[in-house]
């Protein structure tokens, strides 16, 4: 089997074969799903749902098996691995294994679904290896959320919610906001630079700043073999809300990673002067973590 790649999404950590890519995802922390595929078909799905109290998993798994049988799952067999309880069988000729478990750290019920190819047989050892990698740690005491996906590792403050995520060929960008949108953080990774990047990184970074902002400082430094450009910009002229909450400021950084040749971008938009500056970091590889 190929090597495993680690993912962290919505506080859930797991390791999957590195040729499996996330093709579907939800941003909702209460209930949602991520689906992963190899080059030919969907292979794995992870569903989560937050519950108010620990469920009776044994009973839930029995009810679920009965429901699957009623829904047409053939050759249903009871399966399990550690705390995971489940069922496997054939859905329209496709071998499918479904496992469920409760994780008290975030009060999540998780369902892991393995979808095998027609003609393949489910391999419990492989499924067990993936299930063993699933971890749902309690929220960090320092209030930071860690995410790892689309080739990026990023950290954001826990009071920010996942506002949007754009994924297209050569582009992945995640945006987080707080409730009143006074803090916005963006994390992006862009590829195919030879195709579209016609300026240097500094010019590109400055072009990301909205027109109503004025760049007050730009600097570059070589960090772990990466030339990182950083800038700070302030809204100019200020508007009334800036007088109330502090100068609206953007701190941003951009660089290309020599390992994968992609352009990375992290930006934090907030009012400066009142309270701590919102924490944001982005890593492109194990060597470098950039904080803005």
């Amino acid at each position, binding site marked *: 089997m190929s090597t495993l790649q680690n993912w962290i999404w919505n506080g859930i950590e797991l390791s999957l074969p590195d*040729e499996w*890519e996330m*093709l*579907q995802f939800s941003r909702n922390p209460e209930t949602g*799903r991520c*689906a992963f*595929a190899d*080059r*030919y*078909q*969907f292979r794995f*799905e992870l*569903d989560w749902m937050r519950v108010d109290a620990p469920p009776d998993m044994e009973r*839930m798994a029995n009810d*679920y098996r009965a*429901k*699957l049988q009623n*829904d047409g*799952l053939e050759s249903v067999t009871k399966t399990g691995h550690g705390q995971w309880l489940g069922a496997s069988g054939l*859905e*329209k000729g*496709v071998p*499918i294994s*479904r496992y*469920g478990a409760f994780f008290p750290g975030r009060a999540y*019920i998780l*369902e892991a*679904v393995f*979808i095998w*190819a027609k003609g393949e047989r489910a391999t419990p050892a492989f499924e067990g290896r993936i299930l063993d990698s699933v971890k749902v740690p309690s929220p960090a005491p320092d209030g930071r959320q860690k995410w790892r996906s689309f080739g990026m590792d990023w950290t954001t403050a826990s009071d920010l919610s996942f506002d949007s995520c754009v994924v*297209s*060929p*050569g582009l992945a960008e995640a945006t987080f906001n707080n409730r009143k949108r006074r803090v916005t953080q963006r994390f992006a990774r862009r*590829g*195919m630079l*030879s*195709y579209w990047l016609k300026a240097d990184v500094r010019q590109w970074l400055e072009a990301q700043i909205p027109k109503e902002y004025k760049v007050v400082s730009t600097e570059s430094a070589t960090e772990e073999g990466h030339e990182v450009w950083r800038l700070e910009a302030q809204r100019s002229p200020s508007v009334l809300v800036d007088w109330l909450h502090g100068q609206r400021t953007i701190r941003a950084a951009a660089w290309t990673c020599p390992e*994968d*040749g*992609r352009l990375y971008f992290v930006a934090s938009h907030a009012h400066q002067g009142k309270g701590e500056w919102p924490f944001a970091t982005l890593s492109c590889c194990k060597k470098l973590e950039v904080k803005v």
Partner: protein
Amino acid sequence: MKGTTAHQYTEWRSMLAATPVRNEAATVEKDTEDAVSVSVRNKKPGYRFPPISWFVPYKPVITIELDGLGSKLWHLCDGEHTVEQICDIFSKEYNLTFHEAKTAVTDYLKRLIQRGVLAIMM
């Protein structure tokens, strides 16, 4: 726990095994490594009669200008390469994941097929 979802059965093996070919009736006006210009005859739609045609004129030949990506794709659509092989070439050349390359290639192929420049052999 949730029920069965239809996408679990989505698979694109047959699409990846298909082979795109150029339309033999297309005329190549310009052919360099990073720019290709192709002309194809445009079938006159039944509704293109006056007064509609006064406002939306009918062009018997349409010319499609391909950028660097499109030109590369055009050159690979030689009837020899499958969609999967083309995706692998794009993935390697532009350092993309397989699905990133697949999305880019299939979107482009779809547009060129709709314009009559390419066809697909299954």
